[in-house]
């Protein structure tokens, strides 16, 4: 994909991130690093924490329930290739990769899950704070 198109996608996602599509409150984002597993499980949206290569470190219960997965079994697997192959495109993985390269990301975009489930529109929020090398994927299931 051309650099121009990546920039276009990123601008669009940055625009979404500043608007009504934002579903993770700032105070939740601030506290996320220090949240206990129980606190993360109690959130009403999916929380997935991955390293720079996409290896899953945290997979909260809400996401596991919605995606019909066992949360524990996802730990250590690659999110983009093993758990959610529908994310294998430039919109999702490309945005993530660019965010990792730039050491920051705050992107939101609409997405539709269709793999082995009834069609489900969701909102995706890719986030990486400036201070810590931790990548978050938030999923708001409608």
């Amino acid at each position, binding site marked *: 994909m051309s650099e121009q198109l990546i920039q276009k*996608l990123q601008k*669009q996602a940055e625009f979404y991130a500043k608007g009504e599509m934002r579903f993770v409150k700032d105070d939740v984002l601030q506290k996320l690093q220090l949240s206990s597993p129980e606190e993360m499980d109690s959130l009403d949206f999916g929380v997935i924490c991955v390293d720079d*290569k*996409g290896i899953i470190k945290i997979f909260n219960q809400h996401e596991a329930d919605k995606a019909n997965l066992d949360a524990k079994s996802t730990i250590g697997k*690659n999110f*983009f*290739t*093993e758990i959610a*192959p*529908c994310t*294998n*495109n430039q*919109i*999702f*993985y490309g945005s993530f*990769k660019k965010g990792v390269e730039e050491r920051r990301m705050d992107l939101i*975009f*609409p*997405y*539709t899950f*269709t*793999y*082995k*489930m*009834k*069609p489900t*529109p969701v909102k995706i929020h890719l986030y990486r704070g400036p201070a810590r090398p931790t990548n978050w994927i938030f999923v708001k299931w409608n």
Partner: protein
Amino acid sequence: MELIKTIDLETIEKVLTEPAFKEDITHNLLSWKEDYSVSDSDYKDTKSWFEKIITDFLTLARDVEIDSELSVTLFTKYIELKCYWKQLNTQIQYQNFKTGSANTVLIGKASLTTFFLIAIEPLIHDTDLAEIQEFLTKPIKEYIRIESSIDLRLDSDEIELMEAQLDTLYADKEYLQKHIGMTTADEIIEAMDNLEEQIRDLREEFSDSVMLDGRLSFLGKRKITIQKQK
């Protein structure tokens, strides 16, 4: 271990015609129709489209008599539909991203396609499924692998560069030790300051001197002390 599960026609017919499978499809279609406000004609067309995929495959399976051939046919059908779903998924996400919504018929077809995959997956070996998955995620895996190797290469280059710099620094140090008997910056700066001071002294000392007939004569008021060597 057998590489491809041997499947007979009866098993294929069973999984694609059993009530539970049909119920799942009906439920999926109705949810889709309701959630996405699908028109009656789109609903009808999509339902027919999916039923035709099933009947066409069953016709194909019935034409093939040999079980091992059936297994390969099933295997290739799985790949075909998974690739088709992958294309639909990409198209849907781009439509979503550009306009905030995607073509509802494509969404319905993508989801239904995966229900066919769910039905026939148990008839395919886990190792084969893993291989197909590996193959279909190849571009992204390659991407990750290349990035990793680039990272490693950069690290390796950086280490090599740092080692070369270290070698040069040690060589310079040995050279300084050999020729001026000192190696640290502080020692060298101190020595330079000392030399500059001596030069200033000498200039001052010879400021009133002249050369006459190749001999140095002092015209000023400087007293010269000659010290005998012991």
